[in-house]
């Protein structure tokens, strides 16, 4: 059930953020379903493929999409020992393909975007492993099961861990989803873009796949937060996701983008929070005695 919802919801999530952002600044805004309309419009369109690109450019968006869907399956359908490692690496595989596809076009913009994307999102991976690994060590499940319902714990330190984990994962959403303050999804200025500039040469179905995959990725991380907070009830998970959309819209409406050189400080904050989670887990596991 959750899997189907996660597959259908991504564009709704994006549409919701856009709608809330519009309302924040006093505009009416496009319909919440606009990303779906755009998706079906793009699906119907033909593609323009650069002469300088090879087959990599053409297969990359599909591989990226497939990887993201596998990640969705891992998070919502099947759980087995070590699934979070596979989760992280299928996402990394998808990103690897979108990066080499960007390099494949030979455009200086896309090379620039690829280099930025890699340098900033590469910090998400260690933070992710530190957090999920610590939680796994804490719970004894080496899978996503370890994180479920963490916040329901009666132990104060576990609750603290859960809150910090949620915070760090939220920071990951902003990086992986290319949102303000890391990137500006609305900008048309190629020189400032991170994610968007990598897909400048894509069109038609490929572009639709890319949009869908990146929206799905954001939703997956939001679902991760929902799983930490309350996994038992579907409606509660949806409420959490709704609230995350609201938070993202708020941040985008009242804040500005940070300078590209300052993103590194942002990622270090994320890793620092992850390390605190690890420290607290070690503290509990040793019963406070060292």
């Amino acid at each position, binding site marked *: 059930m959750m899997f189907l919802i996660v597959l259908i919801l991504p564009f709704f999530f994006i549409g919701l953020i856009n709608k809330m*952002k519009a309302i924040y600044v*006093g*505009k009416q805004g496009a319909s919440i379903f606009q990303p779906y309309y755009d998706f079906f419009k793009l699906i119907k369109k033909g593609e323009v493929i650069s002469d300088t690109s090879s087959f990599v450019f053409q297969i990359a968006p599909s591989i990226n999409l497939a990887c993201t869907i596998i990640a969705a399956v891992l998070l919502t359908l099947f759980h087995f020992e070590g699934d979070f490692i596979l989760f992280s690496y299928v996402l990394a595989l998808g990103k690897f393909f979108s990066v080499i596809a960007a390099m494949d076009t030979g455009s200086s*913009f896309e090379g620039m975007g690829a280099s930025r994307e890699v340098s900033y999102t590469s910090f998400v991976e260690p933070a992710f492993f530190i957090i999920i690994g610590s939680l796994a060590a804490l719970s004894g499940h080496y899978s996503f099961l370890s994180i479920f319902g963490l916040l329901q714990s009666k132990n104060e330190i576990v609750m603290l861990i859960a809150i910090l984990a949620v915070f760090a994962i939220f920071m990951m959403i902003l990086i992986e989803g290319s949102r303000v303050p890391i990137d500006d999804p609305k900008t048309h200025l*190629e*020189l400032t873009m991170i994610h968007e500039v990598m897909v400048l040469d894509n069109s038609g179905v490929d572009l639709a796949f890319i949009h869908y995959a990146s929206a799905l990725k954001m939703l997956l991380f939001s679902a991760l937060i929902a799983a930490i907070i309350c996994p038992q009830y579907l409606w509660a998970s949806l409420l959490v996701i709704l609230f995350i959309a609201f938070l993202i819209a708020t941040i985008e409406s009242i804040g*500005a*983008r*940070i300078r*590209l050189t300052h993103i590194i400080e942002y990622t270090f904050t994320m890793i620092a929070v992850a390390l605190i989670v690890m420290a607290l887990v070690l503290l509990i596991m040793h019963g406070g005695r060292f």
Partner: protein
Amino acid sequence: MDVIEIKNNQKIKRAEIPVTDFENFTKKIISYDVRVVNLFAKKENGQNRLYCIFANDKEKRLFLTTTYVGGSYPSLTLKKPCLQMFERVIYEEENILPEGHPFLKPVRKQDGNNYEFLKSHDLQTHEVAVGPVHAGIIEPGHFRFLCNGERVNHLEIQLGFQHRGVESLMKKRPSIQLAESICGDSTIAHSMAYARAMESLSNIDVTHREKLIRLIALEMERMAIHVGDIGAVAGDVAYQMAANILGVTRTLVINTMLELSGSRFGKGLMKLGGVNYDIDDVIREKILKMLDEVNDRTDKTVKAMFGHATVVSRLENTGVVGKKRAREIGLVGMAARACGEEFDARIYDDYSNFEITTLKTGDVYARTYLRYLEIKKSTTLIKNMLAELDGEFSKQRYTLNLEPDSFVFSILEGWRGEICHCVMTDSNSFIDTYKIKDASFNNWFGLALAVRNNQISDFPVCNKSFNLSYCGFDL
């Protein structure tokens, strides 16, 4: 007599224009105290004559001097770098070679793309080419960055894609409509400079009331663009709130312009000998109401924007042009005032006791904040002028009836900086020379210097803080 003092919008006989030898000419214009406003060449009686208009802003005086040169002359750029663009234009248009010019590349005409951009032999350096077709609805221009990673080592700007031959069209068929189309965002400023030059040459007097209406329109144009540009800078750093609110606020100003002149950008307002539309009591009330509303909204938004740490950290120390550098490359207008240079062509204009506003830092922050200060200043100026507004509104129509063998120079401060029109007539009363200089002509090179050693991702916000015109440069 080797120089003559000229007054803004006052014609002189061409016979009065002094000629001096090249050495003396050089000495006069390369002095640090004077600012070269325009330098152009003209073929006269088989000889090449260089005309130079320069200003002493401290004493509020404008001067003109000329000299004869042959097919080439020793480049003045080496002594005064800000002349580089003028000399390149002279070489391109009149084929007079400035010997030893360090950077003699085409300005507007592209010679079938034979031009080789600057290259770096450093393997660490890569090139990023942007344009001439850009994302968004802006004009064409090509930017070539030499970057080391994210850092810009050098930016080379190539323009000329919008070259329409305005100056030669002006000679054949001078008209207000043509002047209005020189640069769309400075419609009022350019049409006003044109009208003033032509009125002086045709001996037309403009009533006090109509002079004021023109200045009110000019200040409204300034306000509208500045409000919009602060919003655009906010948009570039993804500060949605200010971008949206100021975008709407700009509409208030230009809609008032629509009520005054029938065009949101003031097309059709200017006429030879005055303005087409009077500011009556209804319009006056509307303008006053608009001013209050705009100021209220701008005050609040700007306060929030410049109190926001992330915004300030994006703007401060980004795209810095120092005062010394600004003087060297001949920056004018708002961009120069943001570096602390006291250049404002409004001191040559009909404003009563005008004081120049400057800031010191010369970064994007200063260029953006100065716009806010100028909005406040324009508000005061408009209010004062509205209070002063009396006298006759003449409905008379005039036709061009130019004095023969005359020279006139018209300078005014558009929102971007000084706008100069320089007109000469021949013995048959036809326009012989029409030279236009928009502030963009001086300032594009300032942008190239501003982004040097900055992050390439900060280029858009630097560019927006200057907001230079492509067509005003290309003509």
